[in-house]
């Protein structure tokens, strides 16, 4: 008789130490079904938003996620500006683009480091995080804070940056491009990584569409969608860049998309620093008329979506937030079933799931309900597989 074992992963995720709960049903080493439970961190931000004034909400929603703390407020602000018919000064559009791309660079580089760690490449982890540090310093110089930038506001931006800072931004971007070039080549040329990540955790194009996934998760499966191009906001129409897509949908493709996107973001930041016009950074918005609108922004993990309805008072009557991981995480069902337990960790990590936005994983024997693996053991399983492959390849 075939025996199915239940593997609970969480409520603390083995990879990112945030609260989300996955239950894997396994037969031997093979995953046959899975189940996700979330909302261990539900903070009721949508409800809270209804109790705040329109201009207080950006400071609330940038706390939806520490990494996407530029994307969430911007999506909200764009929806409100749409209701009020506000025309934002061009300098503010460039400032918004600059901060949002710096955010993408630091998020993608953070992911490259984490992904390296999960498959036992701890040098990649150390390098990536070292190169990420100057980006956080730049964010501090431009917005005053490494995270929760409080940069955008309804009508424009809160803080201007000195034009004297622009040469430094361009210099830092050139340096990062050099480092990333080295790191990208080291990753893409490594035969063990090819063997370890290609064909693993495949999300087919059809499944990507069925699960409505967004961001690098969609683009790695050949679905060429990117809000920056599809519904241009800020200054994305005014700078040159291209969408990065891959066709295979595996973990390797997701890594390639993020690595190459980092270079596109570097290009965008440099163009912003070179082309930013002078002028005011905000217009005054006195009141928000009744109405409704949606605002969406391409966050590092995909489309961040906000819907706002105003009834003419100074507070939103409804504010709906949908973070990208909310649609990307359910696609695990398509990409993890059929995989082995040692590949599940990296497959989940490849989506770059963000739990503060969405939200744990466990390996349990279905009969005895006994817990089989802890989070650390799952990372060890993943690292062991890489080590075995390395030894077999004689590296």
């Amino acid at each position, binding site marked *: 008789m075939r025996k199915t074992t239940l593997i609970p992963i969480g409520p603390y995720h083995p990879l990112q130490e945030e609260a989300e709960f996955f239950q894997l049903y396994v037969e031997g080493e093979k995953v046959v079904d899975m189940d996700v439970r979330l*909302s261990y961190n539900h903070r009721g931000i949508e409800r809270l938003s209804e109790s705040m004034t329109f201009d207080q909400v950006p400071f609330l929603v940038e706390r939806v996620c520490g990494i996407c703390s530029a994307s969430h407020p911007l999506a909200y602000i764009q929806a409100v500006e749409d209701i009020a018919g506000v025309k934002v000064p061009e300098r503010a559009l460039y400032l918004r683009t600059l901060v949002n791309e710096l955010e993408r660079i630091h998020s993608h580089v953070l992911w490259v480091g984490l992904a390296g760690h999960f498959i036992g490449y701890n040098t990649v982890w150390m390098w990536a995080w070292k190169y990420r540090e100057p980006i956080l310093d730049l964010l501090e110089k431009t917005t005053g804070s490494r995270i929760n930038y409080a940069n955008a506001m309804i009508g424009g931006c809160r803080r201007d940056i000195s034009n004297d800072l622009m040469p430094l931004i361009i210099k830092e971007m050139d340096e990062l491009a050099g480092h990333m070039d080295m790191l990208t080549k080291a990753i893409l040329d490594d035969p063990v990584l090819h063997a370890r990540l290609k064909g693993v955790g495949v999300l087919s194009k059809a499944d990507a569409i069925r699960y409505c996934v967004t961001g690098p998760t969609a683009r790695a499966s050949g679905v060429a*969608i990117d809000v920056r191009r599809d519904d241009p906001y800020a200054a994305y129409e005014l700078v040159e860049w291209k969408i990065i897509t891959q066709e295979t949908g595996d973990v390797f493709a997701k890594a390639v998309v993020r690595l190459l996107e980092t270079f596109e973001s570097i290009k965008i930041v440099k163009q912003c620093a070179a082309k930013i016009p002078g002028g005011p950074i905000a217009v005054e918005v006195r009141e928000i008329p009744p109405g409704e609108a949606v605002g969406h922004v391409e966050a590092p993990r995909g489309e961040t979506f906000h819907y706002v309805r105003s009834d003419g008072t100074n507070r939103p009557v409804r504010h709906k937030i949908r973070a990208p991981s909310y649609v990307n995480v359910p696609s695990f069902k398509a990409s993890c079933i059929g995989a082995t337990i040692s590949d599940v960790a990296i497959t989940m990590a490849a989506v770059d799931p963000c739990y503060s936005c969405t939200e744990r994983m466990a390996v349990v024997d279905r009969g005895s309900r006994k817990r089989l693996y802890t989070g650390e053991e799952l990372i060890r399983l993943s690292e062991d597989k890489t080590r075995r492959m390395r030894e077999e390849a004689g590296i």
Partner: protein
Amino acid sequence: MIDMLAELRTSHGSRILGAEHGSPRQTFVTVSDSDAPTIARHISEKMGGRLVTITGLDTPDGIELLYHFAFDANHSLLTLKTRVKKPDPRILSLAPHLPGAEWIEREIHDLLGVVFEGHPRLERLILADDWPAGVHPLRKDEQQ
């Protein structure tokens, strides 16, 4: 940019109760609750709309459901609005045809108490296991 509203009018003209453009790229279309799931499926399956999410919103006249679709290649957004009546709000589920709708329908079921008929697994997603049954935090009457 193709006018998605015009396209929807040719296929479902008699069922559209109201339509308005927010900004040039945003369209809001109102339909009845019995038509909404069919039209939402049509948008997703025939017109290539990507379901972004569904917003649930409690009003004195019922619970409004807003199906947000993105037409990425067409650079536009379309929101399909409908309203289900209280005290027993129900509507046909999209989830059997579109797995991307599974979580958000469970979330709206938790927070607003809308029953999505035919949903493959209408279990709790947001609320804790020990949360009292029948209490929906986003209902305005709960908040008072």
